[in-house]
């Protein structure tokens, strides 16, 4: 009980660290789910387009309407660097400038060049297809009155290849969940590990350890108590993250089988993190060194294992190195869960393999911990 109380007191003093990483987690997820794009994720299906219409004609209106059906049309200010910034950050993929006289030129069958700003992404490729399709068709009806062209173009464009979804999954919702749980890797490895090791390291200081060794409670029991404290803290944090997830991702996603599997995945990672934190406190004596190591590991593994940069965009040699890190298997599981529909042996096998490896990492850490502890006891 006294160990527990002391542990809690130390944790309370460092609550700000946990709060900080939690805030980052929530903000990161909110930003990503609201923009619909993740970090440097180029896989949004609807391109983001802005239309600067100086023509204000029926044809330009028709074009705008058509683009709106197939893309996310956004308002953008022409002032300053707003457009350049939006293109740079891929908030907008494509900007279309409809200069005065645009519809006249089309009506008259005149040659003209469409001015655009494109950031050469997948999205801009799509946007260009959409816009040039409309103009191509419109041009083919010239010469004719502008209004007539607009109507005929729209009619033809009603025909679109129909697409049917083979899946019943809420892929976009699960995508958001995937981001949330992926970023949790960073929050757990940085925030939780720091909080735990900082509180535990106080019990490991040489002077304190001496005092504990001569007390009437065995050091083994104190160690066990500490372990329990660590797991208790981890459980609380995980609970908080899960509850926050309900607000950020939505209960309709969290309580699906896929969502629950991601949650379970995070529990396994947390168990690893706690064991790892425990090992750290046995190896490191100073707080400064602790913070340095935790920062390097949390940021490093988050970058290399596809948390901040999607796995598919990482170079092969990085992915190869990432296989040596537990976060890799955690993130890979999330990726699978985001689109898993069949829960049979064949489809679950890769998940089981990943989970097995993650558990193996945990076991190795625990064994190392025991070895190091015993060695230190002897000293």
């Amino acid at each position, binding site marked *: 009980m006294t160990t527990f109380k002391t542990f809690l007191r130390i944790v309370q003093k460092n609550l700000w660290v946990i709060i900080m990483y939690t805030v980052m987690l929530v903000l*990161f997820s909110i930003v990503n789910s609201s923009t619909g794009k993740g970090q440097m994720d180029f896989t949004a299906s609807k391109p983001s387009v802005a239309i600067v219409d100086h023509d204000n004609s029926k044809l330009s209106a028709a074009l705008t309407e058509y683009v709106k059906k197939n893309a996310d049309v956004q308002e953008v200010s022409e002032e300053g660097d707003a457009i350049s910034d939006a293109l740079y950050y891929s908030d907008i993929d494509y900007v279309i400038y409809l200069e005065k006289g645009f519809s006249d030129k089309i009506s008259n069958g005149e040659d003209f060049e469409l001015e655009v700003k494109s950031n*050469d992404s997948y999205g801009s490729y799509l946007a260009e*297809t959409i816009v040039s399709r409309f103009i191509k068709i419109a041009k083919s009806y010239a010469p004719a009155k502008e209004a007539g062209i607009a109507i005929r173009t729209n009619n033809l464009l009603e025909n679109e*290849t129909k697409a049917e979804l083979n899946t019943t999954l809420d892929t976009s919702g699960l995508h958001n969940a995937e981001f949330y749980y992926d970023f949790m890797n960073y929050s757990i490895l940085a925030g939780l590990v720091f909080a735990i090791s900082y509180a535990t390291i106080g019990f490991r200081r040489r002077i304190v350890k001496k005092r504990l060794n001569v007390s009437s409670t065995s050091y083994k029991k104190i160690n066990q108590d500490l372990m329990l404290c660590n797991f208790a803290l981890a459980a609380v944090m995980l609970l908080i993250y899960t509850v926050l997830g309900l607000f950020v991702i939505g209960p309709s996603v969290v309580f699906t089988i896929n969502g629950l599997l991601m949650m379970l995945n995070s529990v396994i990672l947390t168990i690893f993190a706690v064991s790892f934190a425990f090992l750290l406190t046995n190896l490191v004596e100073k707080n400064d060194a602790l913070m*340095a190591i935790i920062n390097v590991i949390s940021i490093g593994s988050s970058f290399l294992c596809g948390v901040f*940069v999607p796995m598919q965009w990482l170079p092969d040699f990085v992915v190869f190195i990432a296989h040596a890190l537990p976060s890799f298997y955690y993130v890979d599981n999330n990726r699978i869960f985001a689109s898993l529909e069949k829960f049979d042996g064949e489809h679950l096998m890769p998940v089981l393999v990943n989970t097995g490896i993650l558990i193996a990492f945990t076991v190795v850490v625990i064994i190392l911990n025991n070895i190091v502890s015993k060695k230190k006891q002897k000293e």
Partner: protein
Amino acid sequence: MKHLFYNFKITFKNVELIFWTFAFPIILVTLFYAAFSNISAADDFVAPKVAVIENENSMLVPVYKQIFEKVDALNVSYETDFESAKTKLESEEIAGIATFDDGMEYPKLTIEQNGINQTIIQNIMTEIELSIRSGSEFDEVKIKNTYDRKQEVSMIEYFTLLAMACLYGAMIGTKSLDKNLANMTASGKRIAVAAVSKTKIVLGSLLTSYITQLIGLTILFVYMLAVLKIDFGEHLVGVIGLTMLGALAGLALGTFISAIFKVKDSIKDGITTGFTMLCCFFSGMMGPTVKFAIDSSFPLLNKVNPAALLTDGYYALTNFGVGERFWSDVILLVLFSGVLSFVSIKVLRRQKYDNL
């Protein structure tokens, strides 16, 4: 002079400090480099795979086949069995299945998710359908792209990293100053009763800190330019100048933390790293979209965030050159440093304490 030398010796013998200011940024930038080295190639276009289910009774299959031969943007394969195609679809081997009903029915597409590949397939199929319906080939539209992307968006990460390295210099400032404060360390007490002007001592330690920071940043810069070959464009001098200003901001931050927070050494370090990490998060280190989102929705936040000011300064400089935006960032940074320094001086000038 002698005391400057001793100050340097004391600073450089502090292993953790040297790690945070010298080694950590280099480790991080190497990680970034590893993660982003493929990013431009990642956006390269790869034709999505679509499977067409053969149907002898469809009139349009041969028409489409002919057109598909000319289309580079799709990778078309032909199957006879829908079910086996569906398995490939679920395992993501292919991105879509095109099925033709009997007669003159236009094809339907079956997809597994609403991703970019699916949209591309749908787009191209629609194009083909429209051109068949209208019975003619369309003229290409002439398009002029006036946007010149000077750099990949991943450069933001390097900018935030430089900002982080500048702000971490706060730790050097904190530690150096603490040794001279009577209410922080025993040696500080000794210095307080010594026959020497406190201003001189404090300025001396700040100068040492600043020079140490600059050394660390120089090493980082050289590494980024020479080893990782990161391109900062034609305004390298401006980038260096902005970095020196950033180091000053870091120093001001460290002085402020030292003067205001009467807590243990390790907690001060915690405050510095925590605050810096949070600032870097908002300036896009864990994903540039965060910076853009904050700039759009809560611009005021990033106007008081030194990391964001630095990042935006680098961005403005390398994309638009020396202009209004760049100067606005510089002025705000100077203000930030100035305000913090002013408050710190007011507190530090206190020569007597209420309690020690």
